[in-house]
């Protein structure tokens, strides 16, 4: 079959993200954007632009309410994400692609060698390369820290019934530092990899075309194509 010359072949696309995953990403993007826009003026209160924006108690209250509303939405998204993961785990359906494995460290090392011109080969990747895994887990824990510390700051009276008071200023520090870390991370790391290195909109479209699959996820491509009936003589199972 592979030998039949085909003049016109439709471009193949590989499904990469489910509809729910794409919506989760959109929700996360929206919430993070709103939270950053309403959070930064609160963090940089000494800056002129922040004082201009938040010049009256009413405005401060309003921006805090927007921040809280977006936080609730993000929390709902996070609970959904975790809940879905736990459910899938219970049903033994949790895709393991995103979990870091030893190979990722080897890939990262290989990548560093490649970037330093010490190696000629870029590592080949499966469904998620180590950079994408770093992105996911960095944001996973970052958002986790932000959600936890955010609620500590929202309900300090309740929290200090159980925990020492020092938790509040620590949470305040962690919340504002982590937000900056996450923002810088998204701009430097995530934006570079999905916009500048190549435009990768698969999180919105849900699919990746064959060329990108071969180029950036060669192992995943091979895995997918190997099991396809089009290449029976390849003996993929052997």
């Amino acid at each position: 079959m592979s030998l039949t010359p085909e003049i016109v072949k439709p471009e193949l696309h590989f499904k990469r993200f489910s509809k729910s995953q794409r919506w989760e990403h959109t929700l996360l993007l929206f919430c993070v954007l709103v939270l950053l826009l309403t959070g930064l003026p609160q963090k940089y209160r000494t800056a002129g632009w922040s004082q201009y924006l938040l010049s009256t108690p009413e405005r401060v209250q309003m921006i805090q309410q927007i921040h809280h509303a977006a936080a609730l939405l993000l929390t709902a998204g996070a609970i959904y994400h975790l809940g879905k993961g736990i459910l899938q785990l219970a049903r033994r359906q949790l895709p393991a692609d995103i979990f870091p494995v030893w190979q990722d460290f080897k890939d990262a090392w290989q990548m560093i060698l490649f970037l330093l011109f010490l190696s000629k080969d870029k590592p080949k990747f499966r469904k998620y390369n180590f950079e994408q895994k770093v992105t996911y887990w960095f944001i996973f824990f970052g958002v986790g820290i932000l959600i936890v510390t955010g609620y500590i700051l929202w309900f300090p009276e309740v929290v200090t019934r159980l925990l020492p008071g020092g938790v509040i200023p620590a949470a305040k520090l962690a919340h504002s530092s982590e937000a900056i870390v996450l923002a810088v991370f998204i701009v430097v790391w995530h934006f570079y990899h999905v916009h500048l290195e190549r435009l990768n909109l698969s999180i919105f479209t849900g699919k990746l075309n064959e060329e990108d699959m071969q180029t950036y996820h060669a192992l995943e491509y091979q895995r997918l194509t190997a099991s396809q009936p089009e290449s029976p003589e390849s003996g993929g199972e052997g």
Partner: protein
Amino acid sequence: MRALLRASLILVGAALLATAALTCLLDSSEALPRRAQAAAADFTPIRASSPQQGDGGDENLSIGNDTCLGCHGSPGPTLTLENGDILDLYVNPADYAASIHGQKGYACVQCHTTVGNYPHPEFKAASLRDASLQRYTACQSCHGLQYSQAADSVHGKALASGNQQAAICTDCHTAHEVKRLNDPQTHTLLPSARASIPQTCAKCHFAIYQKYKTSVHGAALLEESNPDVPTCIDCHGVHNIEDPTTAAFRLQSPQICAKCHTDEKLMSRYGISTNVMNSYVADFHGTTVTIFEKQSPDAETNKAVCYDCHGVHDISRPDDPITGIQSRKENLLARCRKCHPEADANFPTAWLSHYEPSPEKYPIVYYVNLFYKLFIPGVLGSMALLVALDVGRSFYNRSREKQQKIEAAALPKEAPAVELPPEASLEPPPSTTQEAPGGESAVISEDAALPLMEELPEVEAQESDGEPTSPPPQEAEDETRAQDTPPADQPSQPQETSSEPPLASHDEDQDDASEPEGDEERHD
């Protein structure tokens, strides 16, 4: 000569003033000459108040104090007012002589400008208070600045709005026993005056005085005559006393405390940190308050200011064994609960108590801070470095590819690729690998070539393209650019490869897919 000139100038000015006063007072016109005279006498003290001329001031006066004291210098004369109040017209000559005005030789008629002649013009007042309110305006002619400041003060405004009990000049300074309060040399309060101030305010604000008396400031003033502690006027002002219940006063109140508490010299005498203001502003209560103070000074806020925790007039040492907010957490908790009613025992420690976090004080905060100090440059920095390297590497690769293309076009066929792995034999057009000195593109194109040959052997020649990211087989037919050379090289090749390579290539595929280690080995 100069003195004469001055005197005449003064007289002219006085006359002007007098006419102005007259129009206001609507008095009988026959009083004009007398009034003018009295006003002239009244005006001299402005000059006379300077030390040199003060003693000679009364020489110009038409009516000496003896004249007045002839009647008013001994108890007896009274005036019954409209409501039945009896106004005592007695002035103790000794008391007046001891007052600052008496010492300086000011005449009665300088203030009592309307009573120059005898019999006096009729004086009508509804009550004793009304009498005072009519008379205190006399202070204005010499003490105009203080008078207008007082008129704009909370007392003046209360008076203007109809509260007759609001303090006027004489309530604080008295009428006939006005004391010297300032040191004439330094223009600062005399120590004796400092101690008298709280008592003066206490005449009306007694409950507050009782609190102040036992506060750390009040006790030091009243018991030790400590000149460093604030009296009422240091916080509230002297004549321009503001309403302390406004939102604006609340927002600016930290600045009042900061005046002394950021004064290094003053605080070092008592071992008090001057960092209190900075640490207050650094925390969100203080940040918000100081910004509102600047941006919207009249904004209502319940964000804590100094006195919410430390007390308004009953300020005590934080380590006071009974009332201290540092020594007894329940005292601070009570303050917190004013705004945070649900606060519990742990809650007050959420406030850093003006401390800088350190391993001893607030270790959690200290270590979180330390963590991010290391984490941000360490992790984010290295990520940025990786991205920068990535940019560099892909830029390098792209420019190399371009160069290779140019070279490929220039030198279509040359030395065969000797370093190719076994499958190289399947790749007749060696031109692809030959101009990849780094070998990188050679290896990748070799990999990429496999699916090509496996599925579309007739276009396998395309790999001369030299792209490290070789096109997928399905799209291969599209990429027919610059492919004229390899087919010419080995026209019969495609047929050969089509028969053999698939197996070989698939082996390779499998290796890649199932054993990543194999990949690794090749890289190492």
